């Protein structure tokens, strides 16, 4: 597999990041936030977007300072032993998040659509096309991700129906929560933006590096728009309390739509959503493939097969829906640490290790 297949322009990067970010969150976020924050949950989403935006700034500056991806330079910045430890930790993080997305996908499909379907079959259903795309490189993944705009435009009709048919008064009063709750809500929302941290793994592949921050911020802005819309729609239609008791509020909204030909709008919605999930999982998998290639200089079908098998095995660890959700919450915090705290800590290190970075570039 040639690295040329990985080069993407800033537009494709925007699509890739947006498609990776939007997935499970759009279904789960309204419930989580209403439980945690109440009707002011949309403020938490915006806070989370700013928090994640700080991460994008840090990663952009870090990559620019290094002249390569932050991940590639870890052994130079932290020394070989520590650099390897963090590299392996980041790869494990990508395995964990891929397996959690896979797991949550299976849970959604089994709860909502096919209760009797086997977990493994459903995993294969999602994983095989994703792995196939990943085998063709980042550019193919980003090009396929272009479908996300069409899908999101169609999916957006569901929250739009909720807003039009619902009562916006349910959202008031806006500020009835403490700063503490808003912050905790923002942290819980962070998991829905995960995908932006993949900027840490890609830099030489991106054409138009000057626009790196804008593309990262753009993807976050688009995701924020959809999440806020989904949250408002859930409250407008189901009131300020009920969404906390609904497993997937957005799917519930689709159940309230009556169309002349399509009787089960929720199935149509779910079908489109599966494509959104495919783009999410392929995003994390290509990140993992890139990480393995960067650190072990291996990128072939065998490495891809190993990555896929490890992901499937990891996703089989959790047995129940509650376990999968608890793990997702945990990985959300880890993801924010990876995407915001870690690059922020690395920034001064990179500044101090300017000389070593220069030498590293000369030796390449």
């Amino acid at each position, binding site marked *: 597999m040639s690295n040329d297949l990985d080069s993407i322009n800033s537009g494709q990067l925007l699509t890739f990041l947006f498609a990776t970010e939007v997935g499970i969150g759009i279904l789960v976020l309204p419930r989580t936030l209403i439980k945690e924050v109440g009707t002011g949950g949309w403020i938490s989403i915006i806070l989370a977007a700013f928090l994640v935006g700080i991460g994008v700034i840090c990663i952009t500056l870090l990559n620019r300072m290094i002249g390569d991806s932050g991940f590639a330079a870890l052994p130079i910045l932290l020394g070989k032993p520590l650099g390897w430890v963090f590299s392996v930790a980041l790869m494990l993080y990508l395995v964990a998040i891929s397996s959690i997305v896979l797991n949550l996908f299976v849970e959604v*499909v089994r*709860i*909502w*659509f*096919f*209760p*009797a*379907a*086997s977990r493994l*079959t*459903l995993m*294969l*259903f999602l994983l*095989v*096309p994703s792995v*196939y795309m990943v085998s063709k490189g980042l550019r193919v993944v980003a090009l396929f991700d272009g479908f996300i705009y069409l899908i999101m435009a169609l999916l957006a009709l569901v929250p739009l129906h909720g807003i039009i048919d619902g*009562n916006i*008064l*349910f959202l*008031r*009063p806006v500020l*009835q929560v403490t700063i503490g709750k808003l912050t905790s809500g923002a942290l819980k929302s962070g998991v829905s933006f995960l995908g932006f941290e993949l900027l840490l793994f890609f830099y030489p592949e991106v054409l138009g590096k000057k626009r790196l921050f804008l593309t990262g911020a753009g993807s976050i802005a688009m995701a924020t728009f959809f999440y806020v819309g989904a949250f408002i729609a859930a409250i407008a*239609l*189901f*009131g*300020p*309390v*009920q969404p906390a*008791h609904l497993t997937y509020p957005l*799917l*519930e909204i689709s*159940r*309230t739509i*009556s169309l002349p030909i399509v009787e*089960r709008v*929720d199935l149509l919605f779910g079908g489109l959503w599966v494509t959104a999930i495919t783009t999410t999982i392929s995003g994390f998998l290509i990140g993992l493939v890139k990480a393995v290639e960067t650190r072990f200089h291996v990128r072939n079908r065998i490495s891809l097969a190993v990555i896929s098998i490890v992901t499937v095995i990891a996703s089989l660890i959790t047995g129940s829906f509650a376990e999968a959700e608890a793990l997702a919450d945990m990985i959300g915090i880890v993801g924010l640490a990876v995407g915001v705290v870690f690059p922020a800590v690395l920034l001064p290190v990179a500044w101090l290790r300017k000389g070593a970075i220069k030498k590293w570039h000369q030796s390449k």
Partner: protein
Amino acid sequence: MTVLIALCVLMAGFATGCWNEKILEKVGIALVTSIDSLPDGRLRFASAAPVIDSDAREKIEFVVTEGHTVRECREALRRKAGKEIVAGKVQSLIFGEATAHQGIGPFMEVLVRDTINPLLAWVTIAEGEGSGLLEKGKAMKEKPPIGIYANDLLERTSQSGETVRTTVYNFQTAFYTPGLDPVTPLMRASETEIVVVGSALFRHDRMSGRIDNKQSMMLNLLMGNRIDGRVTLKLPQSLETPKGFVTFQITQSKRKIRKHLNQGKPAFLIAVELTIDIEGFRIGRLFEPTFLEKMERFLSNSVTSEMQKTIRLIQEAGCDAIGTGVIAKASWYKQWQHWNWEELYPRIELKASAKVNIQNSGGTD
């Protein structure tokens, strides 16, 4: 390799649904379901499904089961029914009046949890028992099958405003939202017909009162719902016609709610502006501006009075169907936290004012 992958995806795609197949010929599609609480604490669960078999003598399969929970009843239903009964097309959920008085929240919860049950099914209360209404409906040979019959009645009467449209998700939203209560259609069955007699008023999930068809219309207008029903009123002597009555059809309605605090307590004025077509009145007189003005004033006063009566009934029943509590919470949140809305609601100042504009007269001169 590509072919192999394509095969894998296809197999996974097809196999995914194999575990969940429902073949139309092998299932019974329930269109209407009823739940009643029995005096011994058990439940009676009834279901009516059309029979898809040209040779069958009975066109409807009607099954009644009893058990301690809805799930247990459903399992019993599975053992009794000729085919596996699926609930995905249920159009109406009917609860007996006594059950509604005890509270239907727990049953609704079970029904909402299962993703197969439609959220757009009607929630309806039957005078007497729900299963009784289904049984009578099944025996009505001159009427359409009970599920379709009940659904058509509810559709028509809610469009005209003679009852309040309440689906499963509407009920749940009102039940869960502080400062808002549900209202559902109320039906009565005789040996020969089913009639939508008005609406059942709820306080939380318990039925606490009832209103008739005309009051349901007024409530719909107060709730801001779009309706196209007809109202008949007795005319005063100053506007006397040979018949002494006037019938008008509502073509448009606009609602505005004005609110203020009166001595620390919320007060609301619901102003409704109606555009109507008068039917069955002498057209010539309605062209006279003074007469037209008199008529509009009379109609405005009459509708206001009917609305005020309806408000009194819903306040007495403790049913905040209009959602004044939601408005109060949104407007005066600090005070809201100290109010016990359930106690306060029946005593709040809630007034209505209607302004009727006659658009057309469809009568003969």
